[in-house]
């Protein structure tokens, strides 16, 4: 007599899959949440995106071609979950303007801004350069604030390309926009991000400079 079909919910294979899934999701949680937070800018939305992505991933686990691809696949599910949410939330009119290239009203300074050019002083020796010092004291908080300040279409391409390493073609496919638009948004986004960092990063520098009335706190008594 044939043995009975194992109950799908309790079969060893299913349990093994479940355990692997759980292990991987928990391992990736801080990056899933961090990425969702950068994409949405909102902690509640980020939680929803992560939870929905995990749910979607579990129900579509048969689509996964090998556990070695799980990480990339799960992040793709996360991105698609975010993009669906983003689209759902916008009225048709908003969508038309938000998804089009938000290329209006940018001054040449904003389009071409380069932190490196602002900081670079060619007569200095290569060690201890202003650009190195700037990066050394750049804090996560300023970076997050600068990223969060970018308009949605700009921020999303930066997160997809710089943070997640997608190609321009992949981003074009995910967002359903031409690859030329990905390029132009990325270029504008980087210039704008660097401009914001220059503005934020410059503030503490000025405050620390005694010539500007600031003072160093190193070794000082109150």
């Amino acid at each position: 007599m044939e043995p009975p079909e194992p109950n799908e919910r309790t079969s060893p294979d299913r349990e093994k899959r479940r355990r692997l899934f759980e292990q991987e999701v928990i391992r990736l949680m801080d990056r899933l949440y961090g990425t969702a937070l950068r994409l949405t800018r909102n902690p509640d939305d980020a939680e929803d995106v992560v939870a929905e992505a995990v749910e979607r991933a579990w129900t579509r686990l048969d689509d996964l071609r090998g556990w070695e691809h799980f990480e990339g696949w799960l992040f793709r599910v996360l991105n698609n979950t975010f993009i669906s949410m983003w689209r759902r939330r916008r009225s048709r009119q908003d969508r038309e303007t938000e998804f089009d290239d938000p290329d209006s009203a940018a001054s040449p300074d904003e389009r071409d801004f380069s932190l490196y050019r602002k900081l670079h002083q060619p007569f200095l020796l290569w060690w201890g350069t202003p650009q190195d010092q700037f990066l050394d004291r750049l804090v996560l908080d300023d970076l997050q604030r600068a990223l969060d300040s970018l308009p949605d279409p700009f921020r999303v391409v930066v997160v997809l390309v710089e943070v997640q390493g997608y190609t321009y073609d992949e981003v074009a496919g995910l967002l359903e926009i031409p690859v030329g638009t990905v390029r132009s948004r990325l270029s504008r986004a980087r210039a704008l991000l660097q401009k914001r960092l220059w503005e934020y990063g410059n503030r503490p520098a000025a405050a620390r400079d005694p010539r500007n009335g600031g003072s160093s706190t190193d070794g000082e008594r109150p």
Partner: protein
Amino acid sequence: MSSDSLTCEEVIRQLFAYLDRELDTQVSAEIDRHLETCRECFSRAEFERRLRQKVRETAREEPPERLQRRIRAMLDRY
């Protein structure tokens, strides 16, 4: 350097596409060679690389307790 080597201006213009690995292998190799010999462009490329690494670090954040509980409850249900 050969006469068809890239100029600094050409390297800087394509620098982000180079860092994004969007250039074909030949152009990418030409930029590699330029960066080996040009301190100025190398310095710029290093700056943009380091900045990108910092941007990448912004996408790692400990999930709040509430989300951890929510995910745990979902995983227990599967």
